[in-house]
């Protein structure tokens, strides 16, 4: 008998892995596409030896062995080549000879992905399909008490405001006597949240920008997109399309050298400036662009050397307190554009949100607050941060809104919510639920990656290799061999489709509630949930 070889603690069998590859020798025509496409080289297309025992029928002849070879696929089981379940091999196989299935029990590999003392890092999402937002229903339908509106026939105005709104009394005084009125933008309430060029491939970024420009200029929908922390390509900076872009500045200040230098040549003001203090997926952790993704272009835009990892520190290092961090940053960014551009911070959902909010309320230049809940996605983070850190968005946004109501400031400081909106595909329902809980607008990231670019990541740990620059769909990679799989025009087309269909679904929700001309911000009487504790916590009705 042959030796079984050495068995050590981290030696895994295919059964120990999360994903298992089933391969059909009969159907396989050995084209090699699956092995070529696999982002993690989990498949060995190799020559394999096989013994055939040949037992003769006669009495005198002795049995013999025939050693033959065959060509075929074998799934690797070593930790650096674990299949991530992306399914690309299935996608490219011309004969449907390969199948990726989830092992029936929890994988054992997870206990070992810490070789060398390095815990697991990945991109993607939180790996928890549960969604409270999905459980919220719209229960206050105008029935007979009123002629309900018709989503297809009546006029709707679906807009929200970004920027500091002056209380009506003060606004009238300023109108009569003169004074400073902060900039306010009228935008579509669904915006594409921050994903940097660097985290995203150039084709993906370009596709999103084109889609947004088309929505604005052809469809008259003022959709905006946030740049993420990574600067902005010089041509876009100097173009009219800048007005659809929210420029993000974060603790690494990547790209801001270029932006500030370009200021004299910038013709259009950007939509707004977002100061990132935190990200819902990994609160308290900074950004990280792994070296694999820092190629020549990214290095140039960000103003850094090529091929080095780019960590943004968890906090803005030059500031030491909330007053410093928030007030000074807001002031300096406002000053850069002569107070013509709204500036607002983005934080991760947290029980400390209210402290930040109260601080912003007192800062007359703060143009809003974006809160990113625990279900937000990211390009790279520690597994533990993604899975266990953060605050659910629904209760955080509700608390923030009700706190503003208490102070009478609910119209002055718009709240933007993000993190897991549409994680199970219910984009409009989730977005409207958050708006009725008090958000003025919604930021989406992963949804747009899935719907516009075909990201295959899932809430059950599929793919999620966005951090490694090997994105099999070319969405989060800087490798031209990968991102050329993604046609920017196709992405743009999908972006337009997504927003148009969202707009229709939104009307299908608000029309029966009797709303059409103003976004139902804080219309919590429309909401119900069958979870009594959640209903109480969110001050909405409990329905069974």
């Amino acid at each position: 008998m042959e030796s079984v070889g050495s068995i050590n603690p981290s030696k895994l069998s295919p059964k120990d892995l999360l994903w298992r590859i089933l391969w059909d020798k009969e159907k396989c025509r050995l084209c090699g596409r699956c092995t070529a496409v696999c982002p993690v080289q989990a498949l060995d297309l190799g020559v394999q030896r096989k013994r055939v025992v040949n037992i003769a029928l006669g009495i005198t002849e002795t049995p013999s062995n025939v050693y033959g070879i065959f060509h075929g696929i074998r799934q690797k089981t070593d930790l650096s080549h674990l299949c991530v379940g992306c399914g690309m091999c299935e996608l490219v196989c011309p004969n449907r000879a390969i199948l990726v299935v989830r092992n029936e029990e929890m994988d054992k590999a997870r206990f070992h992905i810490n070789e060398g003392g390095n815990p697991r890092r990945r991109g993607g999402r939180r790996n928890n399909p549960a969604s409270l937002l999905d459980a919220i229903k719209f229960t206050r339908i105008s029935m007979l008490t009123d002629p309900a509106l018709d989503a297809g026939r009546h006029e709707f105005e679906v807009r929200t405001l970004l920027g500091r709104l002056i209380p009506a009394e003060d606004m009238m005084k300023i109108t009569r006597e003169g004074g400073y009125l902060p900039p306010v933008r009228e935008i579509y309430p669904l915006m594409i949240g921050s994903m940097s060029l660097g985290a995203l491939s150039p084709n993906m970024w370009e596709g999103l920008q084109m889609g947004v420009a088309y929505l604005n200029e052809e469809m008259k929908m003022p959709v905006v997109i946030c740049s993420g922390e990574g600067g902005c390509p010089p041509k876009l900076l100097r173009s009219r399309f800048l007005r659809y872009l929210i420029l993000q500045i974060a603790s690494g200040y990547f790209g801001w050298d270029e932006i500030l230098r370009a200021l004299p040549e910038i013709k259009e003001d950007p939509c707004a400036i977002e100061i990132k203090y935190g990200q819902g997926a990994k609160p308290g952790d900074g950004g990280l662009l792994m070296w694999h993704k820092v190629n020549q272009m990214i290095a140039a835009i960000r103003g850094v050397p090529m091929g080095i990892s780019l960590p943004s520190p968890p906090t803005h290092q030059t500031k030491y307190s909330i007053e410093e961090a928030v007030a000074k940053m807001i002031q300096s960014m406002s000053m850069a554009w002569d107070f013509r551009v709204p500036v607002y911070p983005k934080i991760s959902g947290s029980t400390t949100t209210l402290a930040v909010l109260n601080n912003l309320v007192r800062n007359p230049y703060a143009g809003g607050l974006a809160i990113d809940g625990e279900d937000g996605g990211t390009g790279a983070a520690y597994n533990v941060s993604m899975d266990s850190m953060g605050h659910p968005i629904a209760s955080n946004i509700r608390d923030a809104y009700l706190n503003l109501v208490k102070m009478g400031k609910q119209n002055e400081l718009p709240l933007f919510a993000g993190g897991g909106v549409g994680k199970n595909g219910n984009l409009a329902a989730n977005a409207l639920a958050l708006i009725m809980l008090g958000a003025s607008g919604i930021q989406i990231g992963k949804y747009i990656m899935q719907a516009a670019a075909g990201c295959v990541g899932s809430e059950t740990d599929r793919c999620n290799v966005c951090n490694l620059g090997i994105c099999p769909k070319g969405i989060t990679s800087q490798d031209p061999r990968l991102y050329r799989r993604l046609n920017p025009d196709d992405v743009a087309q999908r972006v337009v489709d997504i927003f148009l269909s969202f707009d229709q679904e939104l009307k299908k929700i608000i029309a029966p509630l009797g709303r059409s001309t103003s976004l139902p911000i804080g219309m919590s009487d429309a909401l119900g949930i069958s979870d009594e504790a959640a209903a109480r916590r969110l001050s909405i009705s409990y329905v069974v």
Partner: protein
Amino acid sequence: MCRLFAVTSSEPLVPSTALKALDVMREGHDGSGVGLFLTDLGGRWEDYKNLPTLSGIFSDDGLRELDELMISKGFRCEDEVLIRPTFEPPVGTPKRDNYLIRAYNIPTEWEDLSQKNIGFRLLETRMKLRQQGLANEAMTVFSFWYDVMMLKETGDPLAINDYLSLDSQGISSRIIMAQGRQNTNYAINLYACHPFFIQGFSTMTNGENTAFVPIREYLMSRNFLGYTGYQSDSEVFTHILHYAQNQLCLGLPFYKHIITPLMDNELESHPNREILKLIKHSCRPLVIDGPNCIIGCLPDKTMFMVQDSKKLRPGVVGGRVGKFVFSSEECGLDVVVPERNKHLDFQPMKYDTVCVSAQREKVEKWSQWEALTLQN
């Protein structure tokens, strides 16, 4: 849906004028309640136009409580209409002890105060009475203001009129607003009955206010004493009017721009787009999403009607010099001003504000597209 009727006339009219008009619109209300707002009073009440007049319903204990409180504050009674029904009430109307309208002289120490200050104290007094009365339901106070009487009761409007013999109490007025109630929420609370009132402003509405919760939250967070109650989702329309006029100093043409602002693309071509955009932004939580027809009256006795931004409710205005009617239906006009030129009847549409001033010469109309002037 409730039915609305309002009349503004150079000659004082008795309350039943409006109640009869409501009766012909009976298909639209179920006789479950009525609300009356009377101002520009006639008869002997002409003389008390400068005296705050209290209207409400009181139990016998409540009346004692009222006297105690008003005397302690230094108010002195000048005149009153006190109705103490002795008959069985009509079906749907509960037995009450006292319906009271009483004109007071203000406390002497108030005499040197500014009108604004006195106005605030009158409101404060009404809120105090209302608050105190809520506890044991001994006092229900509808209004406490100059030259204003109000009555609200559950039951059939005309039956209530007969039961209380309203026409023979010496009550008449040049302006009457009346609402016949269609009961959509079964627990009838008198404070939930239209018209609503605050500091000389009154409005009544039909239709459901779908944006009620955010509007209520916004008004309540203004920290103004009178912005409270909200037993009805329509009370906010009165308070928005008060807020626009008294807090923001914006005239009537702006009311429509606050509750149903023009769309962004429409605003682009408006001569006052800058200020209207600012108002639209700052007053965003006050946007009503309808469907509502609002009839109201300002302290200067201007009566007006506006519609929601889709004009989903009926409403018509017509009349002749000296007498104009604002009504949910034509038949309301026919009963009270049959002699008018019907061709001039006007149904305000989604951009219109129509009003008749205290001179009662004509129906003025503004479209939201017209240029506006900002008062200083």
